[in-house]
């Protein structure tokens, strides 16, 4: 039998791929199918699932509401659409901000003395040694009413004899945005750095030689050649921001509810796994659609491999 296996190339391939296929099946395909099946179910009073086929969870997400204040039998409730919209726009804003902050930094590191580059990259990675949640709590310490930022602003105001009211920064959409930017910045810096670092120095010289000044060289040569890094970074930032619930939970309080929070609460607080599953799938589909159109326009960044 071993002899026959030695000759059969395709059987060898299948065997080698088997562990991966098994893993994918157990950890990805089956849970996803379960989510799909549950999303078409109906909840029981104690949080169980009746397996049936109903689109109720999806219509509810889209705004179909049967418990209206007006007493009508059905009306439009924009709550969940608002949450989806808010998540989408927050993910968009975070990505734009992160690109704006990460690009100059990545550029600076890529053009720095090669001996120093590793030190700079190391500094970029240091925050990642601390737990994600703890880093978010650290921002809470900075942003809250008696936090570091207010204390500093207060003492400056005191020195200048300006009346000072501590700023309400925590539990605002702005706080969530700042937290998201902070959390995901390294995931943009690294791929952009990689693509910038790969650009042959002679290309800058060639551009200068052909009459391009610094700005034109950047716009016509550097930027286009670093786009794969920007694309990879965008994918690495946009997708997790769409689903994260910890940042908005801690820095947004109950004020800023995102899809991630919605899903989490359906499973843990509201005990409605059917609605939670439907929301999860909608989130996934939304992310896939955005990613699909984005990568079709800009290509799939090769740099995604490094991160």
């Amino acid at each position, binding site marked *: 039998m071993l002899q026959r296996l030695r000759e059969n190339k395709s059987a060898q391939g299948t065997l080698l791929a088997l562990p991966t296929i098994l893993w994918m099946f157990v950890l990805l395909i089956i849970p996803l199918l379960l989510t799909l099946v549950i999303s078409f179910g109906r909840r029981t009073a104690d949080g169980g699932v009746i397996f049936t086929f109903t689109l109720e969870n999806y219509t509810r997400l889209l705004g179909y509401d049967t418990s209206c204040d007006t007493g009508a039998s059905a009306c439009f409730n924009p709550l969940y659409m608002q949450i989806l919209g808010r998540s989408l726009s927050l993910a968009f804003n975070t990505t734009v901000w992160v690109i704006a902050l990460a690009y100059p930094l990545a550029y600076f590191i890529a053009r720095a003395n090669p001996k120093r580059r590793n030190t700079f990259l190391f500094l970029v990675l240091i925050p990642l040694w601390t737990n994600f949640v703890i880093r978010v709590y650290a921002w809470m310490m900075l942003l809250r009413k008696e936090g570091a930022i207010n204390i500093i602003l207060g003492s400056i105001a005191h020195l200048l004899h300006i009346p000072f009211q501590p700023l309400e920064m925590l539990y605002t959409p702005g706080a969530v945005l700042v937290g998201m930017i902070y959390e995901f910045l390294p995931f943009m810096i690294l791929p952009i750095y990689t693509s910038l670092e790969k650009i042959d120095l*002679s*290309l800058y*010289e*060639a551009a*200068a*030689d*052909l*009459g391009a*000044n610094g700005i034109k060289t950047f716009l016509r040569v550097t930027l286009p050649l670093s786009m794969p890094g920007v694309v990879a970074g965008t994918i690495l930032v946009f997708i997790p921001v769409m689903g994260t619930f910890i940042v908005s939970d801690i820095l947004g309080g109950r004020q800023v509810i995102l899809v991630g929070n919605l899903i989490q609460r359906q499973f843990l607080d509201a005990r409605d796994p059917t609605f939670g599953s439907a929301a999860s799938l909608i989130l996934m589909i939304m992310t896939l659609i955005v990613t699909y159109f984005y990568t079709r326009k800009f290509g799939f960044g090769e740099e995604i491999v490094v991160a």
Partner: protein
Amino acid sequence: MAHEFAVELRDVVKQFVTPEGNLLNAVDHVTMQIKNGEFFSMLGSSGCGKTTSLRMIAGFEWPTGGEVYIEGEAMGHTPPFLRKVNTVFQSYALFQHMTVYQNVAFGLEMEGADKNEIEKRVKRALEMVQLTGMERRRPKQLSGGQQQRVAVARALVKVPDVLLLDEPLGALDLKLRKEMQLELKALQQQLGITFVYVTHDQEEAMTMSDRIAVMSKGKVQQMGTPVEIYERPANRFVADFIGESNFLEGRLKSLSAKEACVVVPQLNAELTGIPVSHGLAVGEEVTVSIRPEKVHIAEKGMSQNTFKGKVTNTVYIGTDTHVFTDVHGKSIKVFEQNRISRLDPGSFYTVGQQVILVMMPENVLILKKD
């Protein structure tokens, strides 16, 4: 009106700090004048300062001392994009995210030329390098030779005063390289643009150049036409670097107005009747050099400059046979052209055979000791 010299380097020095922290003169007080319309080569092995010199003309480096002039104008710290020179890079440095057309058009767009003008000039430039029809390809879809042509077209489309070429053929295989050498030379003659060409390949420099500067250790060792450099090398370095030479150590025994006699202890003999051109003194220690193809293996010796030797090895390389001989313990190389087609092993020299070597006095050069 064009200045007499397209490029002039006056006492140019470029200092670098080595990784050990020492100062190194990569270019050490170099002065050279490159005439308008000339094909000028800087020839030397790596680290001789040729590429650094070229980069200072392009404006990628600024001299530590001295001055670079282009068309008679001192360049100072003028950035590359304000100099009327263009470069063909060793790695080609093509923009991979642009098509061939966009690559060639880039320099014209930077000048702010209008669209029709750009289209016309790009078309002409691509015709010149025989790449018509390749406009929409990306550099990656081209062969090495084609990429090289794009690099040339991209630089030439700007009609520079001077085209700088930094070992542009280094990455091509031998046959293609020879083809491109002739093509580049033809292009230069047709356009009348000054070419400054950097190479480590002496044959390449000889094939293409009007004049060559042989460089070593940051200094110009000799500047001249290919013939001058090969036939009248200024010193031992040049005689050794360009082509091959037999070197013999000797002492000047006597000197007349035109001729000299040198005692060569290595051969236990004297070389007489050697023509002299530069100031030498009787008794001076000198190096005598003779090219291997200028040593003859003769049936019968002459009265002078004739030596008995023994064949130690022969190498057949097609056009020539290299015969290595031993004369009084000193190895002398002789290149014999294979003028007659033959297969019979008996017609070749065999190891151990006794031969008579003749060095005609006019083929012998006296070089001052470095």
